[in-house]
């Protein structure tokens, strides 16, 4: 089928890609840009491993047609440590040990960032609500919740 050219912003930089209409966002990031942080795991929008931020909102990259990225701003886990410094959420995950194998971690971090954008000081219920669509098969959930709370504190300190 006919390829088409799309233009968008990827982790702050304007980019262009020639894609097929049936490609999804994960395929686009992996094959055109070598970005493997968003990875397809369940393939059904349930596990959150393919989480990508499109115009600031988390989406399941595996269920998102790549053509729809045209004209948007896309942020992946690779874009969070701008200037070589980890994002507060990334730091918090490291400091609380909020992962074992790390496969689900990019999705959790992006989703948790959207949570803090909406609710800078979330309670346990809000954290669980936002992260209910992210699965960690190592079951690091208690540490992940700790990490989100720590990141909220870090963001407040930075803002102050």
């Amino acid at each position: 089928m006919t390829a088409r050219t799309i233009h968008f912003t990827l982790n702050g930089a304007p980019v262009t890609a020639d894609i097929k209409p049936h490609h999804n966002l994960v395929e686009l990031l992996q094959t055109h840009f070598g970005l493997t942080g968003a990875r397809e795991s369940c393939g059904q929008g349930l596990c959150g491993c393919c989480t990508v931020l499109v115009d600031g909102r988390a989406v399941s990259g595996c269920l998102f047609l790549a053509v729809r990225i045209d004209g948007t701003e896309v942020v992946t886990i690779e874009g969070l440590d701008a200037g070589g410094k980890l994002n507060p959420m990334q730091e918090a995950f490291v400091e609380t040990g909020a992962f074992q194998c790390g496969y689900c971690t990019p999705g959790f971090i992006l989703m948790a960032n959207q949570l803090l954008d909406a609710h800078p000081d979330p309670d346990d219920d809000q954290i669980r609500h936002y992260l209910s669509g992210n699965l960690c098969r190592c079951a690091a959930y208690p540490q992940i919740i700790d990490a989100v709370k720590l990141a909220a504190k870090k963001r407040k300190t930075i803002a102050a």
Partner: protein
Amino acid sequence: MIPFELAEPKSLTEAIKLLAPDDAMVRPIAGGTALMLMMKAGVFHPTRLVSLGKIEKKYSGIAAGKDGLRIGAMTTLSALEQSLDMKKLAPVITRTLRTLSNVRVRNVATVGGALAHADPHMDLPPVLIALGASMSIAGPSGERELAVEDLFTGYYETVLQKNELIAEVRVPSQDGTRAAYMKVTTGSADDWPALGVAVALQSDGNAVKSARVVVSAATSKAMRLPGAEAALAGQRIDDKILARAGEAAANEADFIADVRGSVSYKRELLRVYIGRAVRAALESGAH
């Protein structure tokens, strides 16, 4: 996925022209969360998809008026969840959306798609039916009105022609309505439900004047239960009345078995959950 052509019309009218009245392999796609799953599973092989993502912005938004809310069909479920107008008019919708799939899906899935897809497990259709919502449907010869309760004909099936699109959903004013939606998930908490029950009551305290009761997930389509509604109307609610309504519902619903439960199990669930949903509605406070 199997390759397909993709059209990206700039207007609803143009989208309708690109659809094919006699070809099931040409389909509209909105958020795409449901269709993508079907395409990835290999159960749907479109030759052409007509993306609605670039049609006029007026189809993505919520407008409050004297007679209720008008919701553009391309409004995302997240936007509906966060709408203060929606929460004021019918907080049952806001509550329902919080447990509908997950934040990522709600960020992308649309109100029109949640209706047109017609999967009986979906949460929004039974609630909209209970609240008496209607739709404006656009086709080649103009628009027509349809009540949401008249949309579904079966599992994945609706009365929509292949070249018709839901343009807008209207939720009427809900003065004094008390409503609740309950679902039973037999796998994980966020699995598709084995049963959904939506109830909307006009009541004075415990005395129910009229009731709209809708079952979903346990049946092949979301549908009202007139027997249960009649058992509740004009009654002061107590255990005996709820048992009678549950019995009527269990007898009139046309259950289907699936991996989430057998027919007899779902019948028992409905028998019990009618009462729970009515009590939840009464306790929810009037809209």
